[in-house]
């Protein structure tokens, strides 16, 4: 997953993955009619089958029926299993960003590699997870390993059907949002793949508006330090989530949305597999990332991660 910088003049591709029934089509439908969808976005879907484009939005249709032009300056294309052909077709069009729906049985990493195509570069792999049956499906004899791989390979998880299973959590240091999140579409469009704690990179020329940073916990810390760190973050930190082992209060489940911080004891008997925090950082304008005042979100997270590590 290297060479993003080398391909800075390439068109970025955001993958939308997830198993059959996880809500990809619903999300694509939402996206196509969303006012925030920037002109010049190309949405590639496997099949127009279940895509529901408002008639009033359709401006043109190609002769072979594989490309639909929309009045918001976007296009929707069906790829019928041949990504290279679809991407070659897009070269002829004024496209600035591609949203690619993967097949339900695709591993995001495999498609990610395919997005390293002349003129294009992968930007983020978003994977939808069906909260109502993920636990069962990830143990399935036939698709269990696939569904687990889809989650592991995601840069951003979007949980769907959370109303059917409100307590559903994925205990992984992978940024996650609910598909009910009011900022879902903006986040998704602006998402850039996560960096690890060690690599708080400068923003690439792709000007991401949303990013995640991960702190992996190596040793226990005090609850006081944790609380202190979490309250010292500035407002550009949109969300913090994870599990942290403390010296005095056991393992704590952290969920901070905006200013509201929830800290609960982790009560499940199984030892958590992943300790640490995921910080989702947003900036109100993408330029902000570049100027000095900008990187506030990032530098705030960086300094707080440093404090957490220094305590060890």
């Amino acid at each position: 997953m290297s060479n993003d910088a080398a391909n800075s003049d390439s068109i970025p591709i955001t993958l939308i993955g997830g198993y059959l029934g996880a809500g990809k089509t619903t999300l694509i439908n939402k996206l196509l009619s969303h006012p925030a969808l920037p002109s010049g976005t190309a949405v590639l879907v496997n099949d127009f089958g279940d895509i529901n484009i408002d008639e009033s939005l359709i401006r043109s249709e190609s002769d072979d029926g594989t490309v639909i032009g929309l009045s918001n300056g976007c296009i929707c294309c069906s790829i019928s299993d041949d990504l290279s052909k679809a991407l070659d077709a897009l070269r002829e069009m004024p496209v600035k960003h591609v949203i690619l729906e993967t097949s339900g049985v695709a591993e995001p990493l495999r498609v990610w590699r395919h997005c390293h195509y002349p003129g294009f570069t992968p930007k983020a792999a978003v994977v939808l997870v069906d909260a109502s049956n993920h636990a069962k499906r990830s143990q399935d004899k036939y698709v269990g390993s696939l569904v687990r791989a889809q989650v592991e390979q995601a840069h951003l998880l979007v949980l769907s059907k959370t109303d059917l299973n409100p307590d559903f959590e994925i205990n992984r240091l992978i940024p996650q949002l609910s598909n009910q999140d009011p900022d879902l579409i903006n986040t998704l469009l602006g998402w850039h793949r996560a960096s690890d704690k060690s690599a708080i990179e400068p923003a690439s020329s792709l000007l991401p508006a949303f990013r995640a940073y991960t702190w992996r916990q190596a040793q226990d810390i005090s609850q006081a330090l944790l609380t202190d760190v979490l309250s010292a973050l500035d407002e550009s930190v949109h969300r913090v989530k994870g599990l942290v082992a403390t010296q005095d209060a056991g393992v704590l489940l952290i969920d901070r949305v905006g200013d509201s911080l929830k800290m609960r004891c982790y009560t499940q008997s199984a030892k958590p597999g992943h300790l640490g925090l995921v910080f989702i950082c947003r900036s109100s304008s993408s330029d902000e990332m570049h100027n000095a005042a900008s990187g506030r979100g990032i530098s705030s997270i960086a300094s707080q991660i440093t404090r957490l590590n220094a305590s060890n």
Partner: protein
Amino acid sequence: MLTLYKARSVITMNPSMPRASAVLVRDGNILEVGEPERMQPWLEGQQFTVDEQFADKIICPGFIDPHLHPSMAAVLLPMEFITAMRWKLPWGDVEPVTDPTAFDTRMQALHRSKPAEEPLFIWGYHQLWHGEMDKARIHQISDQRPIIVWHRSFHELYMNDPAMSMAGIDPAQIKPGLQIDIDEGHFFEVGLGFAINRLNPWILAPEKYAEGLRRLKQVVHHGGHTSIGDLATGMFNLDAEAKALTEQLEGDDVSFRTRLVVHGTRLTQGGRKPEEGPTMAADLLRHNSHRLSFGRHIKLFSDGAFFSQLAQMQEPGYVDGHHGEWLAAPEELERHIRAYWHAGYQIHVHVTGDLGLELTLDILQKMQDEKPRFNHGFTFEHFGFSTPEQIRRIRALGAQVSANVYYLHELSDSYAKSGIGYERASQMARIGSCFAAGINTTVHSDFTMAPAEPLNSMWVAVNRINHGGQVMGAAERLTQQQALEAITINAAHTIGMADITGSLRAGKRADFTVLDDDPLNCDPMTLRDIGICATVFEGRVFPIP
């Protein structure tokens, strides 16, 4: 007009009368198989010819390959073959090339034999035999002529500079990190798609494609076939394929018939529901012509490509821990199968690994519970890996098997070493067990995955010898009788044509394959070298020079 064909022996594949010495034919149909002196009632007062041209030959029922892909073959056949395995092609045998020097020598010879400007497409390269390939190596052959070297698996290719400029590929535009190594001229995975999109004017041009189908026609004839199955019609584009097939594979000069089995998921792609598929597929029947016919058959897919180790395996899986892939979500496969099962179709499912087979068996079990059917012909296509327990389930559910037995010859050695281990690799294509269980079992080439030579498939099934000369899974060897059944009557059952072909008896079409030697009594090691002197399709002789 009646014709009495006499032979040294007629192998009928009719168990009630396995052997005869003559076949009496009228208007392309068999009137009687047996001894000439008993055929008087047909001959009295009639004009007839006694045809003795096969008097010292063996007449077999016309061979059938129940699963190949004319459209894919048409793309490949105009190319030059340099392969590690032997391929008998009508325009000459391709002798095995098993080391790097010999590969270069052969490339050089092909280069010298071509007019200066003509691009040279080569297929069959494999690093295991032919060493590492790159642009510099091709440039040693020529840096003037466009040369494209295609991997045996089809999944990657190499090009020299002239080929890139011919295709309009500007190396400066290709940045690092893509599935293209521009310095080596190497295009793989989606990079292969990039290359193909630009090579299409040379490989998919209508006249090239037509030329490819004409070559396919020769290949099918030379293999001794009188019927074949196109087991995924519409894999590229149904209308275009149907048009090309009608132009090339219908007409008096065509020595075989083709059962077209439409690609089920392609059929309903573009917004149609799987449940609409059976009606759409039935509508295709009105396009049927004499030699080209759809039936109430459908093709569906379970797990990934065998050649790419993407077959879905049960525990303990692959040695290196990688997983195979599903070609459709299990729920989607089930939904398609359900639609066609309830509509009474014969369903053919591509299965390669034993997990892919297990899934498909589970779905078939569900269908039998929902709506029991007898004689439904549900067929497991390719049948790479299986377990003995699955053989019992196949029998219990009334299904049948069409195996690509050639996998065993070409791949069992490398899959034993770097794939799944010796035990399971030696038992791929477990077809001896299928015969023992009474399952209708046939073998196919999946051409161009394997040579379209039924006698070669028969040779592999009987001897189970891999390319290194080792016998793999001796207990699964077929008898010569079983193997001949596999390429005749059993194959006819699989493509739904057993009422008209697959054996020689009164009432069937006069479809013969005429051999120099007896495939049931010869040394089994000589099976694939038996000469085929002619085929007869519906009473018309098509000599093989």
